[in-house]
């Protein structure tokens, strides 16, 4: 059985490496994300209510809604968790004793294998597709409704916007460089359904991607990227984002060598779970918004 929603939200870390990295990206969307954790705390923050009885009623309804599998919340949570799950030994354990001090990237180089551009492109695109599918599951829009999703991107805020900012910075700009859109489009164009099928993350989540075979799913991935590339390009242009700007804001807690950006990208991928962290926050928020309106 999956974990209760209140436990997932209560157990969100107040400060770990993922949270530090996200705080390091505050300059991209200043003041938009605060690390809201704790189930009751989230209820109070989202609804503005403080009465204990009312908070209990809202929380109870949210728990019921989350546990009704037909409502899609558990699937969305599973997607956020699965696309972000690291299979590396270099995770929380290796970093646990580094909290409060700078992580020397050089010390980890032997444990890190940078990803080829193609693998990185697949990673980026799968995270994007998970955002589309989870958004549709949570908000109740048909799963292949890219138009609705793209329109709602303009209205993204808080932890959802932070997730997208981190996607652009950590999974696109740092590993693929400033021309990541053209690069990823080129890679996607060359990608065969067979290559896609050999990707571990794709194998895990493929049942949730629209399309009845790998070729159709690859089409959907391509369409998703095409629909969002305009938004991503605008996001980077409006904020004048560069890989150097992003890395210089991360140097407060990671020692980075400028010529090792591919290593940095792989390291961040292995040591953070920002999709799961902010995805849990987004899901809790939507669930609570619904619960308070239904009770």
């Amino acid at each position, binding site marked *: *059985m999956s974990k*209760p929603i*209140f*436990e997932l939200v*209560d157990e969100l870390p107040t400060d770990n490496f993922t949270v530090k990295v996200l705080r390091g990206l505050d300059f991209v969307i200043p003041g938009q994300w605060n690390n809201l954790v704790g*189930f*009751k705390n989230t209820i109070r923050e989202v*609804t*503005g*209510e*403080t*009465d204990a009885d*009312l908070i*209990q009623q809202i*929380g*109870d*309804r949210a*728990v*019921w*809604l989350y*546990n*009704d599998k*037909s*409502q899609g919340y558990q699937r969305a949570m599973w997607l956020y968790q699965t696309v972000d799950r690291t299979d590396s030994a270099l995770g929380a354990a290796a970093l646990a004793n580094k909290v409060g001090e700078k992580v020397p990237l050089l010390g980890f180089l032997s444990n890190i294998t940078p990803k080829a551009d193609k693998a990185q492109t697949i990673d980026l695109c799968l995270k994007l597709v998970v955002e589309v599918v989870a958004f549709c599951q*949570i*908000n*109740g*829009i048909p799963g292949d409704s890219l138009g609705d999703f793209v329109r709602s991107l303009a*209205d993204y805020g808080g932890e959802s916007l932070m997730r997208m900012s981190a996607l652009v910075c950590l999974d696109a700009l740092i590993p693929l460089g400033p021309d990541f859109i053209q690069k990823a489009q080129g890679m996607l164009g060359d990608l065969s359904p067979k290559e896609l099928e050999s990707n571990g993350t794709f194998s895990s989540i493929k049942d949730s991607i629209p399309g009845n075979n790998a070729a159709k799913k690859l089409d959907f991935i391509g369409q998703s990227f095409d629909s969002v590339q305009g938004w991503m390009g605008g996001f980077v242009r409006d904020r004048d984002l560069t890989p150097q700007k992003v890395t210089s804001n991360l140097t407060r807690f990671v020692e980075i060598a400028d010529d090792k950006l591919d290593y940095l990208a792989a390291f961040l991928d292995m040591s953070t779970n920002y999709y799961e962290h902010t995805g849990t926050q987004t899901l809790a928020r*939507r669930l609570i*918004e*619904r619960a*308070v*309106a*239904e*009770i």
Partner: protein
Amino acid sequence: MFRLKKFLAPLLLSLLLLITACDSAPPSDFQQAQQESTQRGARAVDREAVAGGEFNKFFPRSQAGYEVVYAQEKKGFAEAKLKREGRDVAMLAVSDTVSNPEAAQKFANSTEQIQGYPVVAQGNTATALLVADRFQVKVLSRDPEFTEGDRKTWLGKFDLSGLARLK
């Protein structure tokens, strides 16, 4: 040696008790809901609940400085954000209480009406109305400047009689 043995067992036993006591976190206030909602056959949303998309046409339209942006559309539930100058000032929602009839019970104590439908205040931020003894319409403030009066005004902007015919 004898003395040591005599004390060691109770000492270890109390230590064990202490450790297990510290280890188990107090049960969550939501544990009961968790248990009930994961029992076989438990459903949060009734099969008979009206699809959320059916509610959309009864929502108020964007008007004079206010923008209505649809946010959620689930079975038995639809919600939109009410925005003023790009900021969320309130949430507008319709839900089908066939899934949770206890939500409709609070209207039994209602002393106020809008267009003949019973209205209740809930907490500090919400005002709710019940249509046809079944569909709950709610306006929830998301900005302190959006007052209870504003909530009632916006409740009246829903197409309530249209919604009543949906039953």
